[in-house]
């Protein structure tokens, strides 16, 4: 046991966090706070501070937009996590230095960030009016692509590769010895996964799913390219409030929507932390 008093003991190690806090403080927290403060600003003409922008968050149009955004984000996070998790597992069984793994992970890395106008057009070129698949299968009505359902499909295109990339390191941590040990004890594949595999992977799986949720939640360019009318998502509503030709711009609404988005993600993250604590009990 050290003879030193407890005070330096407690503060000393915290110093290791200072570089990160400094960087995040300057380049992340400060911009966020500036945005938050601007949510309280009133109309440019009248000036002063007001809660107006926050009141509009509770109004019917924005409530339904919030609900739609949440549904879209949870759904694509779920599909992305499950499908991506499966693909990641399959990749993890391959040779770690082999060609397959290198190519699949590289392709996933690139597709995870593929979005915006280019991705939207890729789908238009596939299932749009004159799309390759439309012509092959003789489909007639292609309007579904420009609705929330279409967005779900398009989002999945980058959610799945993202899951593969962030979840693979967790799968790599599974030692083959554990499987062998389970085998020698006579466990079936299902028993192995239920008692060893899933509990060990649950925290990383949930964490990755959380990332997928936040990723879908804040996506803007892809949604804008496909659904330019009606702004059914929170990020699109923010865009509408900032980029305006007809004098209806509301910078403070954009900021208050951003505050709402941060609060929602904080809430979801709290749920994730609670869920993680629960699943970690399986490991005991």
């Amino acid at each position, binding site marked *: 046991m050290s003879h030193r008093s407890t005070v330096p003991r407690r503060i000393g190690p915290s110093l290791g966090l200072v570089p990160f806090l400094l960087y995040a403080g300057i380049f992340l927290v400060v911009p966020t706070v500036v945005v938050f403060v601007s949510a309280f600003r009133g109309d440019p003409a009248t000036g002063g501070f007001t809660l107006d922008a926050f009141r509009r968050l509770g109004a019917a149009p924005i409530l339904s937009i919030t609900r739609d955004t949440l549904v879209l984000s949870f759904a694509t996070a779920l599909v992305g996590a499950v499908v991506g998790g499966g693909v990641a597992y399959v990749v993890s069984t391959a040779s770690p230095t082999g060609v397959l793994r290198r190519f699949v992970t590289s392709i996933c890395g690139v597709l995870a960030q593929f979005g915006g106008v280019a991705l939207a057009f890729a789908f238009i070129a*596939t299932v749009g009016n004159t799309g390759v698949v439309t012509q092959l299968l003789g489909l007639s009505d292609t309007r579904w692509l420009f609705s929330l359902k279409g967005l779900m499909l398009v989002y999945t295109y980058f959610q799945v590769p993202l899951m593969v990339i962030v979840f693979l390191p967790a799968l790599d941590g599974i030692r083959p010895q554990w499987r062998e040990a389970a*085998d020698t004890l006579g466990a079936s594949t299902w028993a192995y996964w239920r008692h060893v595999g899933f509990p060990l992977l649950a925290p990383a799986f949930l964490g990755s799913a959380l990332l997928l949720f936040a990723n879908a939640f804040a996506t803007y360019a892809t949604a804008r390219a496909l659904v330019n009318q009606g702004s059914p998502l929170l990020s699109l509503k923010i865009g509408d409030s900032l980029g305006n030709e007809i004098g209806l711009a509301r910078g403070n609404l954009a900021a208050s929507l951003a505050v709402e988005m*941060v609060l929602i993600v904080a809430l979801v993250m709290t749920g994730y932390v609670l869920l993680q604590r629960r699943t970690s009990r399986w490991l005991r």
Partner: protein
Amino acid sequence: MSATTRARQQRLTRWAVLLVVGGLFALPLVSMFAYSVRITPQNRSAFNSWKAIVANDQLRHAIVTSLELAGLTVLGMLLLLVPTMIWIRIRLPWAVRLVEFLCLLPLTIPAIVLVVGLDNVMSWVNYLVTTGPLALTFVYIVLVLPYCYRALDAGLAAIDVKTLSEAARSLGASWTTVVLRVIVPNITSALLSASFLAVAVVLGEFTIASLFFYDNLQVVIALIGLENSNVSVATSLAALIFGVLLLVTISFVGGRRPRQEVES
């Protein structure tokens, strides 16, 4: 079930899954290619739009800018995140959730709003460091935090960081040795994933670069898209292929070390 039967089953499953999923994911890319080689009055020969990519000077400069930004961002991210994440796991367990939340924050605020708050910060960067496009590095490091944190977290969770570091320290290793020679070799897959994501994010970033008036890869692609649709689709596809080749190259830097190093 014997090990070899399982291995064979795994291989079959592997190929089946990858072929099905890969085939589905290849469809939009194939459609993009088909569109880029369409013959139109503007595009008289099939590969004109692809040839135009090579001839574009502005694009070449933008590619170099984006590559430099990607390299610097990966470096900055690794230097910032890896020591911090290791340290909080060993010494500051209460800080883990704080850092986790801070690393999720950049993803929740859409870039168009974040720019409002970044203005003053960027003016300091321009004043103190540089006014050129590399000033974006500071912002990009923050943008990649959510993805890289998650990848590194998955890797660190799989090894017992506390035990490893304490064992190394008790054998007299300095902190640098602990990080560089004990922990890092055990999380190469996570480091690689994090680097991949950082590179991909930087190569794909558009909004912040355009709002701060820098010409990176995506800004130039968007500019091309305003005039010529064949060329812009070809350029987007080329950027994807370029990204894949780049990442494959980076994966060789990871070396041929086997996954488990810790038994020695």
